[in-house]
């Protein structure tokens, strides 16, 4: 089973990378990019014995996010589960 965790900066938190990307796109002649924000996706491949009940898996991945994958001071996260 695969879980995909999207980690993004909280709204309002400065995103220097995003800012630079928007700027670079503009310099390359791509007009009309109002804003760019950069986040991470972490794809986890979970062993079958761990998988099973999606709610349990979700709770487990949520725990991973809070403990390691996201820095909740400045980031938020979203979990997608793949069958």
């Amino acid at each position: 089973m695969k879980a995909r965790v999207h980690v993004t900066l909280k709204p309002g938190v400065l995103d220097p990378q995003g800012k630079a990307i928007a700027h670079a796109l503009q310099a390359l002649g791509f007009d009309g990019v109002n804003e760019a924000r950069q986040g991470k996706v972490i794809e986890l491949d979970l062993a079958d014995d761990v998988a099973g009940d999606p709610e349990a898996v979700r709770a487990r991945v949520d725990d991973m996010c809070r403990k390691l994958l996201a820095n909740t001071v400045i980031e938020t996260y979203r979990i997608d589960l793949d069958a």
Partner: protein
Amino acid sequence: MTEITPEIVAEHGLSPDEYDRVLEILGREPNLTELGIFSVMWSEHCSYKSSKKWLKTLPTSAPWVIQGPGENAGVVDIGDGLTAVFKMESHNHPSFIEPYQGAATGVGGILRDVFTMGARPVANLNALRFGAPDHPKTRHLISGVVAGIGGYGNCVGVPTVGGEVNFHPDYNGNILVNAMTVGIAPADRIFYSKASGVGNPVVYVGSKTGRDGIHGATMASAEFTAESEEKRPTVQVGDPFTEKLLIEACQELMATDAIVAIQDMGAAGLTSSSFEMASKGGLGVALALDRVPMREAGMTPYELMLSESQERMLMVLEPGKEPLAEAIFRKWDLDFAVIGHLTDTGRMVLTWHGDTVADLPIDPLAEAAPEYDRPWTPTPTQAVVDAAVVPEVPWTEALPTLMGSPDLASRRWIWEQYDHMVMGDTVQRPGGDAAVVRIHGTDRGLAMTTDCTPRYVRADPVMGGRQAVAEAWRNLTAVGARPLAVTDNMNFGNPEKPEIMGQFVGACQGLAEACRVLDFPVVSGNVSLYNETEGRAIPPTPTIGGVGVIASLDRMATVAFKAPGEAILVVGETTVPREGGGWLGQSLYLRELCNREVGAPPPVDLEHERAVGDAVRDLIEAGRVSACHDVSDGGLLVAVSEMALAGDLGATLEGLAETPAALFGEDQGRYVVTVPADQVEAVLADLGPLARRIGTTGGAGAAATITLGDASVPLSALREAHEGWLPGVMGA
């Protein structure tokens, strides 16, 4: 309009008395924006209300001091028309909450303090204190803080060349991150923050303002609780790339004569920068806040005044120079906006799309900020530890243990994450006593170091304060530099507790005494109070950053043993208090091998310190020593071992009593030097009773050992202990 209730006043960290003073100054109730401004201006962080009285007692002048405390950074003359500009600042609370960004923005902030004055930053240092190595949070904090310091400094392209690290359980809930920057500026082009010229434009440059760290300054002034950790206030995110552009743009503008005054936006952002500039100039200022470049929609005047967004500066320009300045900042892709002008009203008037949203008198607010004479009690004197009753662990066992102990183990894992060579002038990299950076294009050097031994300060704040200054002076001397001045970063607990205030007062006294005797004035500094968690204070930590100058890099000393067969001398041993004894109170021997952190710390005899240091420096300047290292944490045998490791050469020692006191006592004012064999007699004759020979260098590679009497320890075992500890803790 928001009604100002006592709750709102309290949330802004103002006491009822202080609020009464607000009412008195205004003659009316403040609105929320005004209250916010009072709150940050009168926070401990900006007003120094608890510490000012004592900071005034520090010596701050010398013929070579061009600018002492009171500006963004201190300035000292280093000859040839150049100056060194430097300061240290803490970012403790933010680094505990978000280690990477907290530490990174700490570096960014101190860099701005230095380049605001017209200097090009040439080096960074960092003084770090973490909790117990095995505390569950420590690893995460170390890796985040180190990555953050490196991430910022490396990207900006300023080498991080030195620092120090201590571990102690009393920092478990409150780490210290003190960052220092040293810059070089031409003596005739120093920029100050004093505004002048009614009508002159006030200009905002750098990054846009967002809702970053609103109330950061008030937070940094309040004690930490588990709850405040939960609240997770918005932490500022650093943008080192923008900072690099800002440095280059400022340098470019500073080469013209467009700038009247300049001030970075640090804690309390736009509020404190505009207040300080106007207040120093005795002027007023009118700002149209709607012109401030904003990152987010819907920002309010309150937020704009309190935001701590990074990488921003405020300047007063010569009239008519706006287009010139704007062209430079646009070239570097930075925001530029004329947001107001200076007035003769002595007031700060803020408008928002034409409406006045705040109108405050500047002087009463900036200068009549509260100043407290807080009650204090002196720290009780500790008994002197009798060396005779200290358990004796054989030195062959004690030495490897000490070399691999948390406070003595190599910090290589840390400094290898810092680009310590960029700019191509790092002549002494981390690992020695002081880092040395060549003054670009010359053959002279700037030496720099940070020092403090918190366990000494806790046991005896006066002596510990002296020791911190003396050790910094000694580390500069050990590379052959002439010490010039210091910056201090006073990290303490809650000053409302008399015993904590007593630590502060004692440390200031010790600092002042040492600075005076050593001719080593304080030119800048920073105070961080309320470093407590759940009522428990950190060990008092007055970190000292010292800077000195080396007249010729050909006459510089390093710690590494250079060749086999050279004489090893100890210089300055006359302070040993008792026959055959050494000072074990508060020593690492006592802590690491006897598990006791007790006793009075080693006394610092300042006259002796000076005499010994001057003699050692004379030897170095005359090219008569081949290596030099001061004796500090861990004592004599540790100092010798560090020199052996650096040179990959062993040592055979003689004439030393095989007692913990003689080998590991931490008596102050001592250096170990090596001298080629044919010159020992002459050097010993010149130094007289100040020096004695304790051994000979020798044995290379796998055969290298530290030998004393019949016993020896392989250098390889010491290296393993020394280099292995930190990577072991960090799991890599």
